[in-house]
């Protein structure tokens, strides 16, 4: 994601959640690329992964709308729960908010990544010489 495109994403999100979001993304990427002992992917598998992008965008949308949808469906109000400790309610609220922000970032990053992939693949198809 280029800095110019990333800027609006960060404006959407509340500033207090940004360090937590960045650390979650950094940790996930380090675990994925640094810790896994895995067979290297060939070009076919990478192409297959790009097809999964649509699924990721759908998952991101679901994550982004999950919290308001769950509150609406269950009728649960985080401001009006006398039985539970306030710290726990705050922690649950923060967790759901963070998942929502991750969903928003995944959707936007997925759209941008998909656009970049599309821009890369189109010129290649014109450049390939015809089979003789």
């Amino acid at each position: 994601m280029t800095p110019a495109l990333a800027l609006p994403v960060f404006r959407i999100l509340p500033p207090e959640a940004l360090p937590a979001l960045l650390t979650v993304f950094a940790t996930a990427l380090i675990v994925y690329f640094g810790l896994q002992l895995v067979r290297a992917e060939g070009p076919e598998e990478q192409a297959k992964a790009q097809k999964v992008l649509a699924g990721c965008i759908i998952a991101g949308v679901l994550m982004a709308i999950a919290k308001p949808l769950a509150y609406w469906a269950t009728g649960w109000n985080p401001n009006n729960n006398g039985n539970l400790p306030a710290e726990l309610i705050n922690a649950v609220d923060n967790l759901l908010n963070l998942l929502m922000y991750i969903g928003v970032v995944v959707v936007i990053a997925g759209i941008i990544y998909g656009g970049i992939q599309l821009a890369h693949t189109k010129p290649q198809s014109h450049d390939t010489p015809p089979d003789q």
Partner: protein
Amino acid sequence: MLLQWILTLLVLIPFFLFLSVLLPQTQWALAIFWLISLTSDLYSTHKFYRENPGQFGQNERNKVFILLTEKLGFKKASAAFPVIFEIPLLLFFALFPLQTLYNYLFQGSPFNFPACLAASFGVAAIGHIQAASKNMHSTTGKSTSPI
């Protein structure tokens, strides 16, 4: 790069931290889960290492493990990798990134190092399970994509 697996890790990091703070008895379970998943990852990696040891540098994605294998051989590298690379990295995760996440989720609570360490073990365990699954599917000739 299978993006859905990164997405899984993204969701599970805050979830594991939340779980290990609220239910401290899960901390040991996450550490044991990490040990089991690391073993299965090493076992599945050893399977494709045996196929062609000379090509291991090209077949394996983890550069640190390739380097250790070249210097020490596979068995010693399997023991050295968690000790000199993975556990220090997990300690780093617990002290810095997960502390930031902890401060966001549990605002005002004192830092809970065992819970952060257990969460980092849990995340690493999921990473190893993913890798072992990919390795096993690759060796059996099946698709690596779960979708």
